[in-house]
């Protein structure tokens, strides 16, 4: 069924199951809540703002930690705002960086206005043109499992869209004090704060 849509919480839970040493950067809004709902892991860095910056932030992290897999997990709205960062990633070519877009084709936080992906813009096609290894859009849980395996292999930069439905879930709100999240993350990754 080519156009099936996944439940975002189930998809993210499958993606992060057995995550090992994966470092995760989450885009503001539902992607942050989805990742926190799986586990409030100290190797998660949640964005609550800085829209459009998720991929660029994950790129800096991936370049700093070349031996560890890094995943940017975000929504279509954030990815579209930072669409130029796909070119920056394509030029930098970090093998350990994967970008996962949870695409429901709407701005879910603000009243479900359609994004450009609802009108035919193909983010995977953009990523592929920028030189990333772009998977076909994912519509089933087997595809999510395969994606998780490929993220761990660090053969990127990798790009994947997971097509999700628009159902709203209870918000799972992690800490939003950025200084705390920064210190916690650095302590988990480097064994040192701040």
């Amino acid at each position, binding site marked *: 069924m080519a156009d099936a849509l996944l439940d975002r919480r189930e998809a993210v839970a499958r993606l992060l199951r057995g995550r090992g040493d994966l470092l995760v950067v989450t885009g503001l809004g539902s992607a942050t809540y989805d990742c926190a709902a799986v586990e409030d892991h100290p190797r998660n860095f949640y964005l609550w703002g800085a829209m459009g910056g998720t991929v660029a*932030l*994950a790129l800096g992290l*991936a*370049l700093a930690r070349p031996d560890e897999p890094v995943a940017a997990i975000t929504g279509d709205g954030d990815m579209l705002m930072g669409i*130029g*960062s796909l070119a920056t990633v394509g030029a930098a070519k970090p093998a350990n960086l994967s970008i996962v877009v949870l695409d429901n084709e709407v701005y879910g936080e603000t009243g479900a206005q359609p994004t450009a992906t609802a009108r035919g813009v193909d983010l995977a096609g953009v990523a592929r043109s920028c030189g990333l290894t772009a998977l076909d859009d994912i519509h089933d849980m087997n595809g999510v499992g395969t994606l998780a395996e490929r993220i761990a292999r660090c053969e990127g930069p990798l790009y994947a869209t997971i097509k999700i439905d628009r159902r709203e879930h209870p918000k799972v709100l992690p800490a939003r004090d*950025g200084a705390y999240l920064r210190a916690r993350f650095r302590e988990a*990754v480097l064994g040192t704060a701040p």
Partner: protein
Amino acid sequence: MSATAAAAAAQAWPDALYDVLLRQHVRQVAYVPDAGHSRLIARCEADPNMVATVLTTEEEGVALLAGAWLGGDRGVLLMQSSGVGNCVNMFTLLENCRLPFVTLVTMRGEWGEFNPWQAAMGQASGDILTRMGVQVHRVEDPSDAAPTLEAAIRQSYDGMLASAVLLSQRLIGRKAFTEEG
């Protein structure tokens, strides 16, 4: 000054900036090019121990350096004054997460600027950075460039602050648009 001496002087301050980056263990350099940064960018790109990343827009650099620091790397963002305006919302990362940050900004829109489209951001850059919580250090004399950058890196990465070093257009040299300059 002979042409050779002038060329040597034009390379001296960017080379001194590069030496500061090495001395201060800056590993990641992100940039949107400017003619004034061209020698420093070339030095960083040629250094196998540095990671130089060309950006599509300057705001990516603010986020990229935040990620670099989360992974343990020190970084510097190179841009020209017009790029400061592109960064504004992304600067909120710095205060919210209390991140160290250093940017080296070449100034346009001053000192005999030919292109009036550069004037507005040239005039506003310092105020915008200050309003966003970034400490601003202005350099007019080439001999002050390296010590000012070194002080900014120290107070940012030792003191967890955001700093900008503005290199004046007089220091960099006016951009020539015509044969007559």
